[in-house]
Protein backbone atom coordinates (compact mmCIF):
# COMPACT_ATOMS: atom_id res chain seq x y z
CA UNK A 1 0.00 0.00 0.00
CA UNK A 2 1.13 3.58 -0.49
CA UNK A 3 3.25 4.79 2.47
CA UNK A 4 1.66 7.62 4.39
CA UNK A 5 4.25 10.40 4.50
CA UNK A 6 7.83 9.26 4.91
CA UNK A 7 9.70 11.11 7.64
CA UNK A 8 11.93 13.85 6.25
CA UNK A 9 15.34 14.47 7.76
CA UNK A 10 14.37 16.08 11.05
CA UNK A 11 17.39 18.34 11.06
CA UNK A 12 15.37 20.62 8.81
CA UNK A 13 12.35 20.94 11.05
CA UNK A 14 11.92 23.31 13.98
CA UNK A 15 11.01 21.97 17.38
CA UNK A 16 8.68 23.48 19.96
CA UNK A 17 9.73 23.60 23.62
CA UNK A 18 7.51 20.54 24.22
CA UNK A 19 9.14 18.30 21.59
CA UNK A 20 10.92 16.03 24.07
CA UNK A 21 7.71 15.64 26.04
CA UNK A 22 5.87 14.48 22.92
CA UNK A 23 8.54 11.91 22.15
CA UNK A 24 8.50 10.71 25.77
CA UNK A 25 4.74 10.14 25.42
CA UNK A 26 5.17 8.06 22.30
CA UNK A 27 4.06 10.67 19.77
CA UNK A 28 4.25 10.04 16.06
CA UNK A 29 6.03 13.16 14.80
CA UNK A 30 5.21 14.66 11.41
CA UNK A 31 6.22 17.86 9.66
CA UNK A 32 3.73 20.72 9.93
CA UNK A 33 4.37 24.33 8.96
CA UNK A 34 8.11 23.72 9.25
CA UNK A 35 7.84 22.15 12.70
CA UNK A 36 8.19 18.58 13.96
CA UNK A 37 4.77 18.11 15.54
CA UNK A 38 2.84 15.23 17.11
CA UNK A 39 0.05 14.03 14.83
CA UNK A 40 -1.06 11.43 17.35
CA UNK A 41 0.04 9.44 20.40
CA UNK A 42 -0.22 5.66 20.88
CA UNK A 43 -3.93 5.59 21.74
CA UNK A 44 -4.75 7.04 18.34
CA UNK A 45 -6.71 9.93 16.90
CA UNK A 46 -10.20 8.66 17.66
CA UNK A 47 -9.41 8.02 21.33
CA UNK A 48 -7.72 11.42 21.67
CA UNK A 49 -10.70 13.12 20.05
CA UNK A 50 -13.21 11.40 22.32
CA UNK A 51 -11.10 12.10 25.38
CA UNK A 52 -11.16 15.82 24.60
CA UNK A 53 -14.96 15.78 24.39
CA UNK A 54 -15.35 13.91 27.68
CA UNK A 55 -12.40 14.93 29.86
CA UNK A 56 -9.41 17.18 29.05
CA UNK A 57 -7.03 17.10 26.10
CA UNK A 58 -3.68 18.87 26.12
CA UNK A 59 -2.41 20.32 22.84
CA UNK A 60 0.94 21.86 21.99
CA UNK A 61 0.29 24.80 19.66
CA UNK A 62 3.61 26.52 20.24
CA UNK A 63 4.28 26.55 16.52
CA UNK A 64 1.71 29.34 16.19
CA UNK A 65 2.89 32.95 16.13
CA UNK A 66 2.52 35.13 19.23
CA UNK A 67 3.17 38.85 19.41
CA UNK A 68 2.33 42.08 21.18
CA UNK A 69 1.24 45.11 19.21
CA UNK A 70 1.74 48.46 20.90
CA UNK A 71 1.24 52.12 20.04
CA UNK A 72 -0.51 55.27 21.16
CA UNK A 73 -3.62 54.40 19.15
CA UNK A 74 -2.91 50.71 18.64
CA UNK A 75 -6.58 49.68 18.60
CA UNK A 76 -7.50 52.09 15.79
CA UNK A 77 -4.28 51.23 14.00
CA UNK A 78 -5.05 47.52 14.03
CA UNK A 79 -8.57 48.20 12.78
CA UNK A 80 -7.05 49.31 9.47
CA UNK A 81 -6.09 45.68 8.85
CA UNK A 82 -9.12 43.75 10.13
CA UNK A 83 -12.93 44.03 9.95
CA UNK A 84 -13.51 43.51 13.67
CA UNK A 85 -14.49 46.02 16.31
CA UNK A 86 -11.15 46.29 18.09
CA UNK A 87 -11.61 49.75 19.62
CA UNK A 88 -14.74 48.49 21.34
CA UNK A 89 -13.11 45.32 22.64
CA UNK A 90 -13.13 45.39 26.43
CA UNK A 91 -9.83 45.11 28.26
CA UNK A 92 -9.11 41.44 28.84
CA UNK A 93 -11.43 40.35 26.02
CA UNK A 94 -10.43 38.27 23.02
CA UNK A 95 -11.76 38.56 19.50
CA UNK A 96 -11.54 36.17 16.56
CA UNK A 97 -10.76 38.28 13.54
CA UNK A 98 -9.29 38.22 10.04
CA UNK A 99 -6.35 39.89 8.36
CA UNK A 100 -7.74 40.98 4.99
CA UNK A 101 -6.28 41.87 1.61
CA UNK A 102 -7.44 44.51 -0.84
CA UNK A 103 -9.67 42.04 -2.67
CA UNK A 104 -11.57 41.38 0.54
CA UNK A 105 -9.86 38.01 0.76
CA UNK A 106 -8.47 36.53 3.96
CA UNK A 107 -4.72 36.55 4.66
CA UNK A 108 -5.12 34.70 7.96
CA UNK A 109 -7.49 34.25 10.86
CA UNK A 110 -6.26 35.11 14.32
CA UNK A 111 -7.13 35.83 17.95
CA UNK A 112 -6.56 39.35 19.28
CA UNK A 113 -6.78 40.08 23.02
CA UNK A 114 -6.87 43.61 24.37
CA UNK A 115 -4.61 43.98 27.37
CA UNK A 116 -3.51 46.86 29.54
CA UNK A 117 0.19 47.45 30.23
CA UNK A 118 0.60 50.09 32.94
CA UNK A 119 -2.57 51.78 31.76
CA UNK A 120 -1.67 51.65 28.07
CA UNK A 121 -3.64 49.57 25.60
CA UNK A 122 -1.88 46.79 23.77
CA UNK A 123 -2.96 43.78 21.74
CA UNK A 124 -1.81 40.20 22.23
CA UNK A 125 -2.04 38.41 18.88
CA UNK A 126 -2.00 34.70 18.06
CA UNK A 127 -1.72 33.79 14.36
CA UNK A 128 -1.40 30.59 12.36
CA UNK A 129 1.98 28.91 12.19
CA UNK A 130 2.05 28.67 8.40
CA UNK A 131 1.27 32.38 8.06
CA UNK A 132 3.14 33.91 10.94
CA UNK A 133 6.13 35.24 9.05
CA UNK A 134 3.94 36.82 6.37
CA UNK A 135 1.42 38.10 8.93
CA UNK A 136 4.02 39.77 11.11
CA UNK A 137 5.77 41.33 8.11
CA UNK A 138 2.41 42.60 6.87
CA UNK A 139 1.39 44.06 10.23
CA UNK A 140 4.79 45.67 10.85
CA UNK A 141 4.95 47.10 7.37
CA UNK A 142 1.40 48.40 7.22
CA UNK A 143 1.58 50.00 10.67
CA UNK A 144 5.18 51.25 10.47
CA UNK A 145 5.54 54.44 12.44
CA UNK A 146 2.15 53.98 14.05
CA UNK A 147 2.43 50.78 16.03
CA UNK A 148 5.19 48.39 16.98
CA UNK A 149 5.07 44.63 16.87
CA UNK A 150 7.02 42.61 19.43
CA UNK A 151 7.20 39.02 18.19
CA UNK A 152 7.58 36.38 20.93
CA UNK A 153 9.56 33.54 19.36
CA UNK A 154 10.42 31.84 22.64
CA UNK A 155 6.94 31.64 24.06
CA UNK A 156 5.11 28.36 24.11
CA UNK A 157 1.36 28.00 23.71
CA UNK A 158 -0.53 25.05 25.12
CA UNK A 159 -4.26 24.40 24.98
CA UNK A 160 -6.26 22.50 27.57
CA UNK A 161 -9.67 21.66 26.16
CA UNK A 162 -12.69 19.69 27.34
CA UNK A 163 -15.40 19.59 30.00
CA UNK A 164 -12.80 18.81 32.68
CA UNK A 165 -10.41 21.57 31.65
CA UNK A 166 -11.72 24.04 34.23
CA UNK A 167 -11.57 21.54 37.09
CA UNK A 168 -8.03 20.56 36.11
CA UNK A 169 -6.67 24.08 35.68
CA UNK A 170 -8.44 25.44 38.77
CA UNK A 171 -6.24 23.22 40.94
CA UNK A 172 -3.30 25.31 39.73
CA UNK A 173 -5.02 28.70 39.39
CA UNK A 174 -8.51 28.99 40.93
CA UNK A 175 -8.93 32.33 39.11
CA UNK A 176 -9.33 30.47 35.83
CA UNK A 177 -12.89 29.69 36.89
CA UNK A 178 -13.70 33.39 36.64
CA UNK A 179 -12.64 33.74 33.02
CA UNK A 180 -15.57 33.73 30.65
CA UNK A 181 -15.32 32.52 27.06
CA UNK A 182 -13.13 34.82 24.99
CA UNK A 183 -11.48 36.62 27.85
CA UNK A 184 -7.95 36.47 29.19
CA UNK A 185 -5.84 37.29 32.23
CA UNK A 186 -2.37 36.90 33.72
CA UNK A 187 -2.01 33.95 36.04
CA UNK A 188 0.71 31.99 37.78
CA UNK A 189 0.89 28.37 36.71
CA UNK A 190 3.46 25.96 38.10
CA UNK A 191 5.13 28.98 39.72
CA UNK A 192 5.62 30.72 36.36
CA UNK A 193 3.99 33.69 34.65
CA UNK A 194 1.30 32.78 32.18
CA UNK A 195 -1.26 34.58 30.09
CA UNK A 196 -4.42 32.50 29.90
CA UNK A 197 -7.40 32.97 27.59
CA UNK A 198 -10.61 31.00 27.74
CA UNK A 199 -10.65 30.03 24.09
CA UNK A 200 -9.79 27.20 21.77
CA UNK A 201 -10.19 25.39 18.49
CA UNK A 202 -12.20 22.34 19.50
CA UNK A 203 -15.73 23.51 20.27
CA UNK A 204 -15.17 22.56 23.90
CA UNK A 205 -14.70 24.79 26.94
CA UNK A 206 -11.04 25.27 27.62
CA UNK A 207 -8.00 27.47 27.84
CA UNK A 208 -5.04 28.56 25.78
CA UNK A 209 -1.98 29.21 27.90
CA UNK A 210 0.99 31.32 26.84
CA UNK A 211 4.14 30.78 28.88
CA UNK A 212 7.90 30.79 28.42
CA UNK A 213 9.13 27.64 26.71
CA UNK A 214 10.80 26.12 29.77
CA UNK A 215 7.89 26.88 32.05
CA UNK A 216 5.40 25.48 29.56
CA UNK A 217 7.30 22.26 29.17
CA UNK A 218 7.32 21.72 32.94
CA UNK A 219 3.70 22.75 33.38
CA UNK A 220 2.55 20.55 30.52
CA UNK A 221 4.29 17.59 32.16
CA UNK A 222 2.46 18.44 35.39
CA UNK A 223 -0.88 18.57 33.59
CA UNK A 224 -0.18 15.25 31.88
CA UNK A 225 0.37 13.61 35.25
CA UNK A 226 -3.29 14.40 36.02
CA UNK A 227 -5.38 11.32 35.20
CA UNK A 228 -8.03 13.48 33.57
CA UNK A 229 -5.59 14.89 31.01
CA UNK A 230 -4.35 13.14 27.87
CA UNK A 231 -1.97 14.47 25.21
CA UNK A 232 -3.69 15.20 21.89
CA UNK A 233 -2.01 15.63 18.51
CA UNK A 234 -2.75 17.51 15.32
CA UNK A 235 -4.83 14.67 13.90
CA UNK A 236 -7.49 14.95 16.58
CA UNK A 237 -7.13 18.74 16.63
CA UNK A 238 -8.32 18.65 13.04
CA UNK A 239 -11.24 16.27 13.62
CA UNK A 240 -12.34 18.29 16.67
CA UNK A 241 -12.32 21.64 14.89
CA UNK A 242 -14.10 20.14 11.87
CA UNK A 243 -16.94 18.88 14.08
CA UNK A 244 -17.06 22.39 15.59
CA UNK A 245 -17.37 23.90 12.11
CA UNK A 246 -14.20 25.96 12.55
CA UNK A 247 -12.19 27.05 9.53
CA UNK A 248 -8.68 25.82 8.81
CA UNK A 249 -6.71 28.57 7.11
CA UNK A 250 -5.36 27.59 3.74
CA UNK A 251 -8.20 25.10 3.31
CA UNK A 252 -11.62 26.55 4.26
CA UNK A 253 -10.46 30.16 4.01
CA UNK A 254 -7.70 31.71 1.96
CA UNK A 255 -6.78 34.86 0.08
CA UNK A 256 -9.56 34.15 -2.43
CA UNK A 257 -12.41 33.77 0.05
CA UNK A 258 -14.22 36.72 1.57
CA UNK A 259 -15.62 36.68 5.10
CA UNK A 260 -19.15 36.75 3.68
CA UNK A 261 -18.59 33.71 1.48
CA UNK A 262 -16.92 31.93 4.39
CA UNK A 263 -19.87 32.40 6.71
CA UNK A 264 -17.77 34.79 8.79
CA UNK A 265 -19.78 37.94 8.10
CA UNK A 266 -20.24 38.18 11.86
CA UNK A 267 -16.57 39.17 12.14
CA UNK A 268 -17.44 42.46 10.43
CA UNK A 269 -18.38 44.62 13.40
CA UNK A 270 -21.52 46.74 13.32
CA UNK A 271 -19.67 50.05 13.44
CA UNK A 272 -17.18 48.75 10.85
CA UNK A 273 -20.06 48.08 8.44
CA UNK A 274 -21.04 51.72 8.69
CA UNK A 275 -17.53 53.17 8.67
CA UNK A 276 -15.53 50.78 6.52
CA UNK A 277 -11.82 51.46 6.81
CA UNK A 278 -10.56 47.89 6.36
CA UNK A 279 -9.04 46.25 3.28
CA UNK A 280 -11.57 45.13 0.70
CA UNK A 281 -14.35 46.99 2.50
CA UNK A 282 -16.19 47.98 -0.68
CA UNK A 283 -16.41 44.42 -1.95
CA UNK A 284 -17.27 42.98 1.45
CA UNK A 285 -19.93 45.57 2.23
CA UNK A 286 -21.33 44.97 -1.25
CA UNK A 287 -21.61 41.27 -0.51
CA UNK A 288 -23.25 42.01 2.84
CA UNK A 289 -25.84 44.07 0.99
CA UNK A 290 -26.38 41.91 -2.11
CA UNK A 291 -25.26 38.46 -1.02
CA UNK A 292 -22.19 36.47 -2.06
CA UNK A 293 -22.15 34.04 -5.01
CA UNK A 294 -21.06 31.08 -2.90
CA UNK A 295 -21.21 29.99 0.71
CA UNK A 296 -19.31 27.73 3.06
CA UNK A 297 -21.59 24.93 4.20
CA UNK A 298 -21.51 21.75 6.21
CA UNK A 299 -21.92 18.47 4.32
CA UNK A 300 -23.10 15.08 5.53
CA UNK A 301 -22.11 12.31 3.09
CA UNK A 302 -24.18 9.13 3.10
CA UNK A 303 -22.48 5.96 4.19
CA UNK A 304 -19.10 5.67 5.82
CA UNK A 305 -16.64 6.79 3.16
CA UNK A 306 -15.03 10.13 4.02
CA UNK A 307 -14.98 12.85 1.37
CA UNK A 308 -11.84 14.94 1.34
CA UNK A 309 -10.57 18.37 0.38
CA UNK A 310 -10.81 18.99 -3.35
CA UNK A 311 -13.74 16.63 -3.99
CA UNK A 312 -16.11 18.13 -6.55
CA UNK A 313 -19.69 18.83 -5.42
CA UNK A 314 -22.45 18.49 -7.99
CA UNK A 315 -26.17 19.13 -8.04
CA UNK A 316 -28.74 16.44 -8.84
CA UNK A 317 -28.23 17.10 -12.57
CA UNK A 318 -24.49 16.59 -12.40
CA UNK A 319 -23.55 20.27 -12.70
CA UNK A 320 -20.50 21.29 -10.69
CA UNK A 321 -21.60 23.63 -7.91
CA UNK A 322 -18.60 23.71 -5.62
CA UNK A 323 -15.88 21.75 -3.85
CA UNK A 324 -15.05 20.23 -0.49
CA UNK A 325 -12.49 22.26 1.51
CA UNK A 326 -12.26 20.06 4.63
CA UNK A 327 -13.47 16.54 5.18
CA UNK A 328 -12.92 13.52 7.32
CA UNK A 329 -14.37 11.15 9.85
CA UNK A 330 -16.20 12.61 12.86
CA UNK A 331 -15.49 10.36 15.86
CA UNK A 332 -18.17 12.00 18.01
CA UNK A 333 -20.78 11.39 15.32
CA UNK A 334 -19.37 8.11 14.03
CA UNK A 335 -19.77 9.21 10.42
CA UNK A 336 -18.02 11.29 7.78
CA UNK A 337 -18.55 15.07 7.73
CA UNK A 338 -17.18 17.81 5.52
CA UNK A 339 -17.21 21.51 4.79
CA UNK A 340 -17.06 23.10 1.40
CA UNK A 341 -18.32 25.91 -0.78
CA UNK A 342 -21.44 25.67 -2.91
CA UNK A 343 -23.35 28.13 -5.06
CA UNK A 344 -25.49 30.19 -2.69
CA UNK A 345 -28.73 29.07 -4.33
CA UNK A 346 -28.00 25.50 -3.20
CA UNK A 347 -26.66 26.28 0.27
CA UNK A 348 -29.76 25.73 2.40
CA UNK A 349 -29.44 22.91 4.95
CA UNK A 350 -31.20 19.83 3.66
CA UNK A 351 -30.26 20.45 0.01
CA UNK A 352 -29.29 17.20 -1.70
CA UNK A 353 -25.98 17.21 -3.53
CA UNK A 354 -23.52 14.67 -4.88
CA UNK A 355 -19.83 14.50 -4.08
CA UNK A 356 -17.29 12.84 -6.37
CA UNK A 357 -14.83 10.51 -4.69
CA UNK A 358 -12.37 8.49 -6.72
CA UNK A 359 -14.46 6.86 -9.46
CA UNK A 360 -17.96 7.20 -8.00
CA UNK A 361 -20.31 9.74 -6.44
CA UNK A 362 -21.63 9.80 -2.92
CA UNK A 363 -24.99 11.35 -2.05
CA UNK A 364 -24.72 14.09 0.56
CA UNK A 365 -26.84 16.66 2.30
CA UNK A 366 -26.01 20.28 3.05
CA UNK A 367 -25.99 20.66 6.82
CA UNK A 368 -25.82 23.45 9.38
CA UNK A 369 -22.51 24.16 11.08
CA UNK A 370 -21.40 23.28 13.77
CA UNK A 371 -21.99 19.56 13.69
CA UNK A 372 -21.52 19.21 17.45
CA UNK A 373 -22.97 21.53 20.13
CA UNK A 374 -20.24 23.80 21.54
CA UNK A 375 -19.47 23.75 25.26
CA UNK A 376 -18.30 27.34 25.66
CA UNK A 377 -18.66 29.00 29.10
CA UNK A 378 -20.22 32.27 28.14
CA UNK A 379 -21.07 35.04 30.65
Amino acid sequence: MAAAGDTPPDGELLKTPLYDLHVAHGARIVPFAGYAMPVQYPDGIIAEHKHTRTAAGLFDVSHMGQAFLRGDDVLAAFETLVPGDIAGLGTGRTRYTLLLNDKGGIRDDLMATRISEDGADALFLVVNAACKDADFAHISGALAGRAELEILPDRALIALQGPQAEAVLAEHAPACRDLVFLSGADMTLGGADAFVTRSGYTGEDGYEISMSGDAASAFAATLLSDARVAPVGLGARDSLRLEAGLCLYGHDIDTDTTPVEAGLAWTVGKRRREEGGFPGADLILGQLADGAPRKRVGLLPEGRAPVREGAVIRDANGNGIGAVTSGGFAPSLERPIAMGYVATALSAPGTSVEIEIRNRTVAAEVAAIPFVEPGYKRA
Partner: protein
Amino acid sequence: MADRKYTEDHEWVEVDGDSGVIGISEYAQEQLGDVVFVELPEVGKVLDRGDEVAVVESVKAAAEVYAPVGGEVLEVNEDLNGDPSLVNTDPFGDGWFAKLKLSDPDELDELMDEDTYKKFVEGLS
Protein backbone atom coordinates in the same frame (compact mmCIF):
# COMPACT_ATOMS: atom_id res chain seq x y z
CA MET B 1 2.70 -20.58 11.99
CA ALA B 2 0.84 -18.92 9.15
CA ASP B 3 2.49 -19.19 5.74
CA ARG B 4 2.23 -15.55 4.77
CA LYS B 5 4.14 -13.78 2.06
CA TYR B 6 4.64 -10.02 2.01
CA THR B 7 5.20 -7.12 -0.37
CA GLU B 8 7.35 -4.07 0.26
CA ASP B 9 4.11 -2.10 0.44
CA HIS B 10 3.07 -4.12 3.49
CA GLU B 11 0.37 -6.27 1.91
CA TRP B 12 0.30 -9.97 2.78
CA VAL B 13 -1.12 -13.05 1.12
CA GLU B 14 -1.84 -16.33 2.92
CA VAL B 15 -2.14 -19.21 0.48
CA ASP B 16 -4.57 -22.09 0.83
CA GLY B 17 -4.49 -24.41 -2.17
CA ASP B 18 -5.06 -22.35 -5.30
CA SER B 19 -6.57 -19.39 -3.47
CA GLY B 20 -5.09 -16.80 -1.15
CA VAL B 21 -6.41 -14.41 1.47
CA ILE B 22 -4.95 -10.88 1.38
CA GLY B 23 -4.65 -8.10 3.90
CA ILE B 24 -2.24 -5.51 5.27
CA SER B 25 0.35 -6.02 7.94
CA GLU B 26 0.61 -4.91 11.56
CA TYR B 27 3.18 -2.33 10.51
CA ALA B 28 0.80 -0.93 7.87
CA GLN B 29 -2.18 -0.65 10.21
CA GLU B 30 -0.03 1.10 12.78
CA GLN B 31 1.23 3.58 10.21
CA LEU B 32 -2.33 4.26 9.04
CA GLY B 33 -3.85 4.90 12.43
CA ASP B 34 -7.54 4.41 13.12
CA VAL B 35 -9.23 2.91 10.05
CA VAL B 36 -12.71 4.33 9.48
CA PHE B 37 -13.68 2.84 6.11
CA VAL B 38 -12.49 0.19 3.68
CA GLU B 39 -13.53 0.22 0.04
CA LEU B 40 -13.48 -3.42 -1.03
CA PRO B 41 -13.40 -4.78 -4.59
CA GLU B 42 -16.34 -6.40 -6.38
CA VAL B 43 -16.52 -10.17 -6.24
CA GLY B 44 -15.53 -11.49 -9.66
CA LYS B 45 -13.09 -8.68 -10.39
CA VAL B 46 -9.90 -9.92 -12.03
CA LEU B 47 -6.71 -8.25 -10.85
CA ASP B 48 -3.14 -8.27 -11.98
CA ARG B 49 -0.42 -8.25 -9.37
CA GLY B 50 0.09 -4.62 -8.32
CA ASP B 51 -3.43 -3.47 -9.27
CA GLU B 52 -5.36 -1.49 -6.70
CA VAL B 53 -7.48 -3.99 -4.77
CA ALA B 54 -8.85 -1.83 -1.96
CA VAL B 55 -8.73 1.64 -0.46
CA VAL B 56 -8.32 2.13 3.26
CA GLU B 57 -9.52 5.37 4.79
CA SER B 58 -8.01 6.39 8.09
CA VAL B 59 -9.12 9.47 10.00
CA LYS B 60 -6.54 11.58 8.20
CA ALA B 61 -6.12 10.14 4.71
CA ALA B 62 -6.86 7.45 2.13
CA ALA B 63 -4.31 4.79 1.23
CA GLU B 64 -4.38 2.38 -1.69
CA VAL B 65 -3.86 -1.31 -1.15
CA TYR B 66 -2.32 -3.23 -4.06
CA ALA B 67 -2.82 -6.89 -4.94
CA PRO B 68 0.32 -8.81 -3.88
CA VAL B 69 -0.51 -11.43 -6.50
CA GLY B 70 -2.91 -11.51 -9.42
CA GLY B 71 -6.23 -13.33 -9.32
CA GLU B 72 -10.01 -13.26 -9.34
CA VAL B 73 -11.82 -11.92 -6.29
CA LEU B 74 -13.78 -14.82 -4.80
CA GLU B 75 -14.93 -13.24 -1.57
CA VAL B 76 -14.56 -9.97 0.35
CA ASN B 77 -14.65 -9.40 4.10
CA GLU B 78 -18.12 -7.90 4.63
CA ASP B 79 -17.33 -7.54 8.36
CA LEU B 80 -15.16 -4.55 7.50
CA ASN B 81 -18.24 -2.62 6.40
CA GLY B 82 -19.67 -2.80 9.88
CA ASP B 83 -16.38 -2.59 11.76
CA PRO B 84 -13.44 -1.17 9.83
CA SER B 85 -11.40 -1.08 13.04
CA LEU B 86 -10.81 -4.84 12.59
CA VAL B 87 -7.99 -3.80 10.28
CA ASN B 88 -6.31 -2.19 13.28
CA THR B 89 -7.15 -4.76 15.94
CA ASP B 90 -6.59 -7.95 13.92
CA PRO B 91 -4.80 -7.16 10.64
CA PHE B 92 -3.72 -10.80 10.08
CA GLY B 93 -7.01 -12.38 11.12
CA ASP B 94 -10.46 -10.80 11.20
CA GLY B 95 -9.11 -7.71 9.40
CA TRP B 96 -8.57 -9.62 6.12
CA PHE B 97 -9.64 -7.87 2.93
CA ALA B 98 -10.37 -10.36 0.17
CA LYS B 99 -9.86 -13.91 -1.02
CA LEU B 100 -8.42 -14.36 -4.50
CA LYS B 101 -8.20 -17.34 -6.84
CA LEU B 102 -4.53 -17.11 -7.77
CA SER B 103 -3.92 -16.75 -11.47
CA ASP B 104 -0.19 -17.49 -11.24
CA PRO B 105 1.21 -19.11 -8.08
CA ASP B 106 4.75 -18.46 -9.34
CA GLU B 107 4.22 -14.82 -8.41
CA LEU B 108 4.49 -15.88 -4.76
CA ASP B 109 8.20 -16.54 -5.28
CA GLU B 110 8.76 -12.83 -5.75
CA LEU B 111 7.37 -11.95 -2.33
CA MET B 112 9.11 -11.86 1.04
CA ASP B 113 8.65 -14.59 3.60
CA GLU B 114 7.94 -13.84 7.27
CA ASP B 115 11.58 -13.47 8.36
CA THR B 116 12.63 -11.41 5.36
CA TYR B 117 9.67 -9.07 5.85
CA LYS B 118 10.44 -8.72 9.56
CA LYS B 119 13.99 -7.61 8.73
CA PHE B 120 12.65 -5.32 6.03
CA VAL B 121 10.36 -3.57 8.55
CA GLU B 122 13.17 -3.28 11.10
CA GLY B 123 15.25 -1.56 8.44
CA LEU B 124 12.56 1.06 7.96
CA SER B 125 12.55 2.46 11.49
